[in-house]
């Protein structure tokens, strides 16, 4: 349970206010989402409440097994679903918005559940500090809407191994079509929300080129019960496609992991692509079809075909859902954004993450489409709920008005014990969706959850073991070329087509040039 003192509360409230400001900016500047298929606003409200009631208990168990900062290290090294939009922003934000709902209804005071709030935000802050370690910030927003997690050793492998393309060649076409199909499928599998997609970067690749990482998660049988029997021919649950662009400046990469570019994102400017996978059981990024450009094009075309068919299969399944099933599925997608922490820690239980808590079920009759829309709009857009006001002299960061989305914890809790420290940790819940019966698609094959947990417990990627964990970019700057630095770099270079075993002494000029420049290894053009 939380260590309540003045310092921990100051840190909690500071982090909370930053989240509040950033979330407001995201909500008013990005886009309002709607769907004719899914009752999105009702499901979002249900998800926030589900997060409020369940998340603190789940995070305490995870934190005890694998501390949050260690989980941040894991997420920094490869692409995991505990990423910018899911874990760094969504998990604490959804929890806190659930708290606001209950305060608005008069069912909670700002002093109530104080231990829960402190614990959730402490976990989240420690995760974020470790996740963003290489750029030294807490959020993308704090870094000026940039997102640069990866160390040089990983980026050198990408720069050396990505395959060059020109618009119209086979690999360029295969890559752009696969990315479109993956985006489509990820939106559908995630009930119209964007959390199955992730973008990060940009990284400077020299010669007026920038690289962005495009990740797609939960593409096959896994945690989501509605994915049982879908895309079973896809051997991997997650795919990462690094893409190098020429003459394009990605000037914004926000905390929803979406980007803005100048000039706009244009497939004609793509110069090189690759494909990798990673999950809680992989030791680094695993190349997928990267042997040569033809093999990569083959693989991308094959995956696209599988996902095209899977999109139709899944759409037909979802189209037959009842309204309640759509709400439950959407709510569970949102409230389970932290579920992969449990996969990493080996503490995952399906019912923890894929039931609507009984305490939340009470509120479902309120959740018609109009109330969902208006409650959400007032709470995160207009900030017009009475309790969101601050005194008349204040001017909030982005709106300039005396109102904040998220409510801080009064410091009076340090001397006044008139509050409930926690929402409690006994779960009972249910779901209108069919129970999960399939297996989990992982880099270790399709396995059951006991095997998944067993493999995850105690697994530490080599670059994060005791001897390497603290060898960061600052250390490398002063120690490149040493045996210890070479060993670290060689761990990341395992499986690299062009850099295997090369060590830490390379600069950009020493890297093998890309296929484009070499004019070799071309896909059919």
């Amino acid at each position, binding site marked *: 349970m939380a260590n309540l003192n003045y310092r921990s509360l100051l840190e909690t409230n500071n982090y909370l206010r930053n989240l509040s400001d950033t979330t407001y900016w995201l909500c008013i500047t990005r886009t309002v989402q709607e769907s004719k298929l899914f009752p999105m606003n009702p499901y979002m409200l249900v998800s926030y409440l589900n997060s409020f009631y369940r998340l603190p208990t789940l995070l305490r168990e995870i934190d005890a097994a694998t501390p949050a900062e260690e989980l941040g290290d894991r997420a920094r090294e490869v692409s995991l679903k505990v990423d910018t939009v899911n874990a760094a922003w969504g998990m604490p934000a959804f929890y806190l918005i659930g708290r606001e709902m209950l305060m608005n209804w008069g069912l909670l005071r700002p002093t109530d559940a104080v231990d829960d709030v402190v614990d959730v935000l402490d976990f989240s802050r420690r995760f974020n500090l470790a996740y963003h370690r290489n750029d030294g910030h807490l959020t993308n927003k704090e870094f000026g809407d940039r997102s640069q997690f990866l160390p040089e050793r990983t980026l050198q492998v990408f720069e050396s191994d990505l395959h060059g393309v020109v618009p119209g060649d086979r690999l360029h076409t295969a890559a752009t079509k696969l990315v479109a199909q993956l*985006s489509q499928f990820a939106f559908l599998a995630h009930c119209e929300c964007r959390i199955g997609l992730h973008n990060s970067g940009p990284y400077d690749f020299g010669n007026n080129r920038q690289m962005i990482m495009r990740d797609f998660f939960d593409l096959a049988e896994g945690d989501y019960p509605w994915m049982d029997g879908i895309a079973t021919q896809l051997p991997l649950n997650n795919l990462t496609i690094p893409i190098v662009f020429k003459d394009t400046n990605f000037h914004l990469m926000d905390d929803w992991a979406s980007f803005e570019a100048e000039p706009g994102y244009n497939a004609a400017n793509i110069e090189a692509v690759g494909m990798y996978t990673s999950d809680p059981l992989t030791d680094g990024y695993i190349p997928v079809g990267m042997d040569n450009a033809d093999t990569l094009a083959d693989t991308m075309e094959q995956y696209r075909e599988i996902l095209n068919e899977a999109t139709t299969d899944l*759409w037909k399944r979802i189209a037959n859902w009842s309204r309640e099933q759509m709400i439950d599925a959407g709510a569970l997608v949102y409230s389970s954004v932290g579920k992969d922490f449990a996969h990493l820690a080996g503490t995952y239980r399906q019912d923890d993450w894929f039931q609507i808590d009984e305490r939340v079920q009470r509120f479902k009759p309120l959740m018609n489409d109009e109330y969902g829309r208006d409650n959400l709009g007032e709470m995160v857009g207009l900030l017009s709920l009475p309790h969101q006001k601050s005194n008349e002299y204040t001017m909030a960061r982005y709106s300039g008005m005396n109102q904040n989305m998220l409510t801080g914890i009064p410091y009076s809790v340090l001397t006044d014990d008139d509050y409930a420290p926690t929402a409690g940790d006994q779960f009972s819940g249910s779901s209108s969706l069919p129970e999960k019966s399939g297996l989990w698609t992982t880099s270790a094959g399709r396995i059951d959850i006991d095997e998944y947990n067993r493999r995850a417990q105690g697994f530490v990627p080599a670059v994060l073991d005791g001897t390497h964990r603290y060898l960061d970019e600052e250390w490398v700057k002063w120690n490149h070329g040493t045996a210890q630095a070479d060993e670290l770099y060689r761990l990341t270079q395992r499986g690299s087509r062009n850099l295997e075993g090369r060590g830490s002494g390379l600069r950009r000029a020493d890297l093998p040039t890309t296929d484009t420049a070499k004019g070799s290894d071309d896909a059919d053009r």
Partner: protein
Amino acid sequence: MKDARAIELETLDSGYRFEYSATASLESEPDKYKRADRPASSFTDGLDSDGRRHVGVGDNVIKKSQTVSGPVALVSTIEQVMEFLTDGIPPGTIAVIDDSGGTLTAPIIEGFAGVICLGGTVRSHLGILAREYDVPTLMNCKINDLKNGDMVELEVTAAPPAADAYETGDTGHARIWLIENEG
């Protein structure tokens, strides 16, 4: 649960009916929702000098070198999507979609020659997917009433809105023309 139901019942007893966003809501509880479709935003009719009728505006997602023309198909229900899935999409069809989400039309979006979306922004999910699939698309459209089969032309040669367009209100620069009316 009982209290929550009572609140809703009191509202419905007063004669009030809720607005819906998802068709599943209207279909599952038709007595609870208004059966009002989104009204087409009225747009000033006007004949261009070349005889085309200017019938709408929107925000262009991807700048193209040429405009795109084709017959209109209004798409707003699961049943319509299922029909297109079963029977295929006639070549050249331009979809008019009143949903800026990407899931309703998920299995068929790639088959359209163009899209007129009556909501959202270029950053909405449908806008994102249009960009990825390279389907000429106007988002946030305001149009006169269009009927299935009407031939329209989309000005997808227009510049996409600026990054801050939705804050400044500087939107709606791509035009939609009616070329031939089904009558």
